[in-house]
Every structure is written in C-alpha cells, then in structure tokens.
C-alpha cells in the first residue's frame, strides 16, 4: 500500500490540526472542548471514519487501522496534555494555599513538673534500675524515728547538727531528714533491703542562698550479707554518672553522721575542672575540683541492732542526698530560694 493515499493524507491533516489545537488548550475546560471537538461523535476524525464504509473491503481494514492509530495518538496526546494541565492547576491551587511558616504556632498548653519533682523522678528512675524500691513515710514524724532510732538520743551532741522544728516538744517533729524512714522500714522487712525514700524535710535554719528551712532529700539504704564501702562507692558512682556527666571521678572523705560508721562525704569531680589541677576561680567547684554532694556510710551497728538485724551477720550502706543541691549543680542554680519563690519565669525553664 502506498504511504500517500488521499485517506492517509486526510488522516494526517486531521491529526496535525487536532494536535496543533491541543497545544493551545491551557486549562481543563479548554481541554474538554478539545476532547468533544476531536474525539467526540461529530469530529473530523469521525467524519473520515464514517467514510470508510465506502472503501473496498481490503482497503477498509487498512484504513480502519490507520484511523484508529490516529485516534489513539490523539487520546494519548490528550492524556499527556491532561496530566500536564492537572499538575499545573494543582500547583497553582497549592500556591494559593501557601502560609507564612514564620507566623507563631498554635501551642497546646504545656505544663511542667517543678524542677524538684523532676529531679526526684530522675533520681528514682536511676536507682530503681539498680534494684532499689521506693517508699515514703510521714513528714510530721515522731522524734523517736527521726532521732532516737538513728542513734541520736535526746542529749546527743549530734542534735547540734540540726535545728529542729517541733510540732510538740519533745516527741513530735517536722522530720529533719528522710532518714527517719529507716526504723519504720527495717522493722517490717528482713534483708535483703534496697530502698530509697524521697521527700520533704524541715529545719529551723536561717534562709540564705544555700540554706532553706524546707528542702527535699532522697535517702537510700541497702542491707545484706557482705556489703562494704566499695558497694556504696559503686552505687553512688553509677548514680552520679547517670545523673550528672559521664567519666565522673568520685571521692570519699571522712565525715560524721550518727547513724553510719564509717561515715563519709561523697564528692564528684567538677565537670569543668580536673580535680588534680583545678582552676582557682571555677564558679562550679570554687577551685577544689570536687563537689561534695551527699553524706553516706555503713549503717551503724546500733541502728541495725535497734531494728533487730544482727550486725555480726549483716552490713549495710546508706546515704542521704539533698535534691536541691543536686538540681543546683545540674542546672547551675545559684540561689536555693528560687525553688520555692514559685516565679513561673524560673519554673518554666525546666521544660
């Protein structure tokens, strides 16, 4: 068959005219008009195809095929053009929806725990990971549990170390230390014991940048066969590394608390200074290289005996740490009074 029959020429002309017209359709409405004009029932192509019946049978098949080829070409061109226009129209629509992303967001009201509650929760999480259980005991406490059971009878010189607020002298006090839970707990539990007690404490102290009359402590206690100062050091070091900063160095210094023997003060290395070569003017450690963060020691044999544990069989370690002190070190807070002034501008920083 010749490539240039009148029919073929007509089809080519129809196709060329239609494609040329398609190129000037710029939106979906124009496209629909084009579809009706070129692929509908009454179109130049339909006209050509309508005349196919007049052809010879053998020519008719070839012509029909050619006409269909044109139709498919036009359909394909339409689909392609539709896709281009749809994409263009979508992007135009999206452009109209553009927002100023720098306008303020619509913030849900977001509250926070007080920094002391947050610090307690962090400490408790860490210590629970080491198998310590949590307990709480009364804040208004018997003098017996706060002092007597802890090897501090009424006349004891160690009473000088803490000024006590009495609810009713001499038997009812605002507890001066969370250590007061020890007697209550140990009399109801046999070793092994691993327990911590967070809570509020009170002392009749003058208030300044580092002293508050109300403050929080977390007291810890572990009793079993064979515990030593090395277990205490390991426990506190692991705690400090998680609470403060990694690669921490720790130190014991002899100190006195009536309910432990030996008694020690536990210090961590300053995060800015090398303890062996501390910076004289360091605002964190004041040039010592060390930050004393808590008092600790081996549970006094008299305390063990008092609760019915055999001090020849069991040993234990205990510590008490000031939550405010820990938070002050961790967050660089210079004045303890900020905690209970409840200025939201301070509290809201602990997000």
């Amino acid at each position, binding site marked *: 068959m010749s490539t240039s029959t009148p029919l073929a020429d007509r089809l080519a002309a129809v196709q060329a005219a239609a494609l040329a017209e398609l190129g000037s359709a710029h939106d979906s409405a124009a496209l629909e008009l084009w579809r009706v004009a070129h692929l509908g029932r009454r179109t130049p192509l339909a006209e050509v195809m309508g005349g196919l019946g007049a052809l010879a049978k053998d020519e008719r098949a070839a012509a029909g095929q050619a006409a269909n080829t044109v139709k498919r070409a036009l359909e394909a061109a339409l689909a392609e053009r539709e896709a281009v226009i749809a994409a263009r129209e979508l992007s135009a629509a999206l452009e109209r929806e553009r927002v100023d992303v720098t*306008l303020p967001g*619509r*913030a*849900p*009201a977001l*509250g*926070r*725990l*007080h920094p002391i*509650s947050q610090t307690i929760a962090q400490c*408790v999480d860490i210590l629970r990971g080491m*198998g310590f*259980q*949590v*307990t*709480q005991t*009364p*804040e*208004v406490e018997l003098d017996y549990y706060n002092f007597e059971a802890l090897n501090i009878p009424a006349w004891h*010189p*160690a009473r000088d*170390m803490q000024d006590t*607020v*009495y*609810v*009713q002298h001499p*038997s*009812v006090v*605002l507890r001066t230390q969370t250590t007061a839970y020890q007697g209550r707990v140990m009399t*109801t*539990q046999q070793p*092994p*014991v691993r*327990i911590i007690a967070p809570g509020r404490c*009170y002392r*009749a102290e003058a208030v300044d940048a580092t002293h508050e*009359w109300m403050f929080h402590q977390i007291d810890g206690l572990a009793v*079993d066969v*064979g515990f030593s*100062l*090395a277990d205490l*050091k*390991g426990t506190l*070091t692991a705690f400090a590394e998680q609470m403060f900063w990694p690669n921490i160095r*720790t130190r*014991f*210094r*002899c*100190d*006195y608390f*009536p309910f432990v*023997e*030996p008694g020690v003060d536990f210090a961590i290395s300053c995060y800015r200074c090398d303890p062996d070569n501390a910076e004289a003017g360091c605002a964190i450690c004041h040039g010592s290289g060390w930050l004393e963060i808590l008092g600790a020691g*081996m549970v006094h044999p008299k305390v063990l005996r008092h609760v019915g544990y055999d001090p020849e069989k069991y*040993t234990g370690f205990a510590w008490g740490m000031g939550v405010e002190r820990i938070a002050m070190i961790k967050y660089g807070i210079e004045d303890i009074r900020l905690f*209970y002034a*409840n200025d*939201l*501008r301070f*509290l809201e920083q602990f997000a």
Partner: protein
Amino acid sequence: MKAPLSWLREFVDLDPALPLKDLRHRLTMAGLEVEDVRVVGSDWRDVFVARIVDLQKHPKSETLWVATLDAGGRAATVVSGAPNLRVGAVVPWVVPGGRLPKMEIGERNLVGIASQGMLCSGDELDISTDRDGIYLLEDGAQPGARLEDVVGDVVLDVYITPNRPDCMSIVGIARELHALTGAAFHEPSMPELGGATPAASLISVRIEDPLGCPRFTATVVQGVHGGPSPLAIQRRLHYAGVRAISNVVDVTNYVMLELGQPLHAFDRARLEGGITVRRARPGETLRTLDGETRRLSDDMLVVCDDRGPQSLAGVMGGEDSEISTSTQDVVLEGASWDRASIRRAASAFNLGSEAARRFGRGVDPELAALAVARAASMTVQLAGGQHAAGLVDVFPGRDVNWTREITFDTARIDGLLGVRHDRDAMATTLERLGFGVQRPDERRFTVAVPSHRRFDVEHVADLAEEVGRILGYDSVPTNALSGTLPRPRPDGDAGFGDELRARRTLAAAGLQEIITYSLVDHDEPAKLDVGAAWPVPPSTLAGLPDTLIRVDNPLSSEQGALRGGLLGSVLTAVQSNLRHRDSVQVFELARTWRGALQPLPEERRLVAIALVGNVIGSAWQGEARPLDFFDVKGIVDALARSFRVDLAYVPTAHPTLHPGRGAEIRAGEQVLGVLGQVHPRVAERFGIDGPAPYVAELDFDALVAASRPLERVATPSRFPSADRDVALVLDEAVPHAAVESAILHAGQPLLVRASLFDVYRGEPVPPGKKSMAFALTYQASDRTLAEDEVAAAHTRVEDALRRAVGAEIRGRAA
C-alpha cells in the same frame, strides 16, 4: 577550732617542708575539715617593727603627737593621735605604699606635718582586739624586722564534728597529725606541783552527785598579781579566737584550748568554806559572769560554797566569785560533768560558752588533773605567787575503772571498708591514735580504747573508720552492686507512683507544678473565710478541730502552723506571678495535716489547682479567651479519668467560693473536694485584683482510694455504629447532669456514647427554656444493628427525656 600551727608544733614535729596545702588536704580527708587558713600577715604589705626615738606634741594640735621612728637604720616621722605612745616603745609601722587588711597607706599631711605612713593598733592588724591605742610590741622585737616575722603564724580553722570532742584541742589535732604523717608526737606531761602547803589544807571538795560530776579536781595558787599576759600568749589566744583578759583568766583559756579541759578560776577570798557539787535546789538563783540573774532548776549542776551556788557547772561562772585585778588567791577547778546535764543547762539559758560546748560533747575525765596542774604551774609563771602542793582530786567516777577492749577478726575491717589494708599499717595507725593494739593470733586484734576516745569508739565499725580515714579512702574500689533483690513491699511504693502520675497528668493539661511551704500563718483559714482547718465542706470534716495545728518553735508567725489545705499557699503564688503576667495556671500536690496529735496528726495528700487569665491560644488568630469554671472542671475530670474515677458535681455554698460558681466534687457518695471561682472578697484579701481565679482542691488520698484498678479491657466492636442526634427544649433550671443521666439510662444497652454539642437560649426558644442537642452513638459488640433496633432504642431515649426532665423533643410531635 582555730589552731595556730606554732602551737601544734609544740606537740608534733611536723616536717617543715610539708606544704600547707597538703596539711590542709590530709586533715580534711581524715574528717577534720579545714574550713579556712589564716596566714597572719598575708594581708599586710610593708609593715615593719620600729622604735620610737623621739616624741613631740604636734605644734598645731592638742590631740596629735609627732613621733620619730627608727626602723633598723631607716628613720621616719609619723603623726599619731594614739594616747599610749612613749619614747622607746617598739611599734608596728606601715610605710607609705604599704597596706593593712582594710586600707591602703600613703603619706599624708596631718595639720601641716607630713606623716610617713602610720602606726597601727592590734585591731587594725587583727593580732588583738585592742583598738584604743597603738600595739606595743615586746621589747625583744628588732626594729627593721618585718612584723610578720615577729608575730606571724598560720591558723587552721578546723570544723570539729560532734563525735570528736577530743579534737577541740591543740593536743587532739596534733595527735591526728601524728597519725596522718608519722611525725613524732609529744604527749603533754604532768608538771610536778611541789610546795609547802598541801592543797587539801587550803580547799575541800565534796561531791553529792557522782553521776553528774564523776571528777572534781582543784588546787590553789596564792599571791598572784593580776595583769596582762605576755604578748605571745595573748596573740595565740587571739588567733585561736579567744579574747585575752588577764593573766589568771588567760591561763584557764589557754589550757582549755591546749588540752581540751575547760577550767574555772574562783577568787578564793570570795568563797566561804568548802566546795560542794550538787544539783541546784528549786528556786535558787545565780548571777552569772554576763551579769544575768539565772533561775536554776533541779536538773542543773552547780558548784557551791557554804552560801550557795557560785557557778553553773561546766557552763558559766558566777559573778560573785569572779577573778578580778585585786584577786590574790585563786582556786582552779577542773571537773568532769555529765554531758546531758550540761547540754540541758546550756540550752535552757541559751549559753553556748566554749566550756559548755566541750562538756556537752564529752571531756575525757582523765584530763582534769593534768589540766589543773598545768594551769597552776602556768599561773605561777604568768602571775607570780605560789601554788599549793599537789591537787585535791575527788574522782568517784574512777571506781568504774574505765576500760574498753575490742577484740575482732581483722577481716571485718576489710569487709566494711571493701579494701584490704596491711595488718602492720592498721596496727600502727591505731597505735598512733592512742589505741593499744595486741595481736593474739594471725587473724585477730585486741584493741584497747584510750580514755580520750571513750565517747565515740565502741565497736569494730568505729575502728574500721579510724583505719579507713587515716590510710585513706581513695583505695576503696567501686563495686557494681550485686546480690539478691528484695521482695516486693506490701505497701508497694507507698503512693510515689500515684503522685507522679497525677503530676504528669496535670502538667499535660497545661499546668505548671509549684511547691510551696508546708507551714502557714495560723490565721489562714480565716483569710479563706473558713472556720475549719480545711476549705472543704463540713461533710468531710466531721470531728475535726476548726484550727490549724501550731508548731512549738516557728521561724516566724507566717510559718506558725501546719497547713490544713493548699488553697491559701497556691493563691499566694498566683498573686505573686500576676505581678508580671496576665495568666497563671498552676497546681500543687502536697501533704497537709489535721486532727489531734495521737501522737501524730492525720497526714493527708491534697491537690490544689488555680487558673486565672486567658486560655493559652493563638492570640493573633483571635483564639485567646478567658479561663472559666469549665476549664478547671475539665482539668479535674482529666485528673480523675487518669485514676479511672467517675466524678459528679453538686452546687455548693462554700464560703471561699463564688456562691453561684462553686461545686462539691463527688465520687459516688464521697466528697473529694471543691472547685469553683474564688469569692471576690477572698481574692481581694490575697491581693488579687481583676477576675478572681478558678480553683479546685481535692483529697488525693480519697481519689486514689476511689480509683478502680485497670483489670480487664474490652475489645473494640468490629460492627458499624449508628449515629442519631436528639434536640430538646426544656426548662432552664434542669441541669445538664439530669439530662445526660436520663439519656444514658434509657439508651442501655445499645447506647455507647452521648455528647452534648449545643446549648441555645433565645428565639425561637421561649423565655425560661433552653435548647440542648446531643449526638448519640448506638453500637453492639456482636452484630450490625438493624435499623428498627436503633429506632426503638432512640425512641426510648426520647420518651425518657420527655418523662424524666419534661423535655420537648424538637422535630417530633409531642
């Protein structure tokens, strides 16, 4: 305890090359924390010894002198107003350009004459407290020498823990340095008190209360001449923080600081008859050295003559028998007292004397004779006269024949310290501290406790500390904790987790947690307009006192009582924040107290919430709106939901609250607390202007008790639900709770949800009526509901609404 190093060196041969920094560090690590070090003269510049070689009245001033100085070949002219200058006096002179602790010294013109530098008082140099004249140095001081080379010293200020009264002395600290460094230690030795007159012929002592006074030692020095002590002694006392007074008194203080045994000196002429030690009799009084007349009680120990009490034993002497410049014969007392009695007496009169501090912590009874003998011999050196032969030493406590031996397996020390120390090093350490050590076999030590450690060493744990602190804790390894975990405790975590959950729920609801003081003004309930301790309706307060529990020794009246509720504290915090912002949304969860002390009061956890200002919303989009009743109610509901507690709200006329905007919070029949808007009168009392805050206060213990455990959860239905709305018109007075309850009740069992989505008043709803619209959801867990099932259930709901709350269902014929 302030310890001059020169004094310490009299008892321990410290290596002069040992740096001060190391000395300080080692004492501190061993438990004797050196809080401060004063190097005398370190805050001076160019202060020299000079001799006054000429002294003239200032030609133009009545009060000034012109002194010509010789400072070792260097001459100078200084103008001074001091009254005690004389030719030949040796004085401290600051050259022009020099410095004193509080001033720079230059050359200045004093009424026409240039003064080259200045002469200084002891106070200006901080080598004495005297500020009335120029410090006159000892004659031996070489003109031209630097002053610090004459009067210099290094003073360690050591914090002594209450368990170590033995270290409240120069000898005690020297002994520690001996143990720490190995430097030779010289025990103070007992001076021989020879003489013509036996002490017993001059003084008699009788102890009526041997438990209160286990030992009383005394002697007499006759013919003393009162006057100032030598300058070196005065300076030592000053460096140690004790004021020099006169030779006889200074000796008692000096010996106390040196040995740790407080002493008392009586003017023998002022005592009548012999000395008796006893408890005070009711009604007896004593005028003490500070001029106060003290009413004594029968638990106080007194030293009496034939007339009555002459001193409050171990605490303070009596004015009557006080040493004066005219005293000729001195009675020196060194005694031992019962610690508890001394502490009671000192605290009863709030007298914290150096003596009372030592006796209250424990003074070794073995010291008394040594100290009295040392004081007698020193008094003669400083004040002349003659001491009696020997001592009167009444020592009923000696019958006890005090000894203490501790035998133990040395492995127990390793077991406590977590590190094994060499046994010879252990023994040497203990011996240097004064313990006797015997080693009956390879494993064991038998340790004899010295008398000076009788108050703190009883057990092998105490000896472990001695070994640990002297040999150092740096060798203690860090062990990872191992071993058996404890059994669960019967009370779980004693509520810690509940509190944390509540805090986190409230924080998630947008509130900031605050922590306020547990002590409040006793009048706080009145400020909240409640007579009761706790601003919660009387139904929860049955049998409670209507006042707060007072504390015995409050820090101030604002902190005079245990708080019974949190609202007052929370409102105070709101008010202080309103000074710098418009909106405050806070809560506190804390303990409160009420009830009788039996012996402890009832301790109860409460939660309080306060909201004021606007909802935090996007202001530029116009979303901010004032916080109101339904904000605080929604938060309380959220809190209750997190504990799986269903709450109901009943109007209340609580006096703290707005009469039309207050509700009781109930769980079933139990009242958990209240919520509402604070009464404007109460808000004003708390200094809150503008709209009064919305608050809630509820009993957290009761909330937790009402909490249902989460035991079994339902599987969500796989079948579709059917939604229907119902709109009704009803009387204004019918509360939402009644409508909701009618719907929920009638819709059972297919109704799974009913939520109010509209409340409308006004045309076309008639006056006195309101329109409400609810969206209802019907669903079954085992099937798709048929249309007629839903219709039947919905009709039941509509019927119930007509019947129960008199509603007219809109869009339905009545």
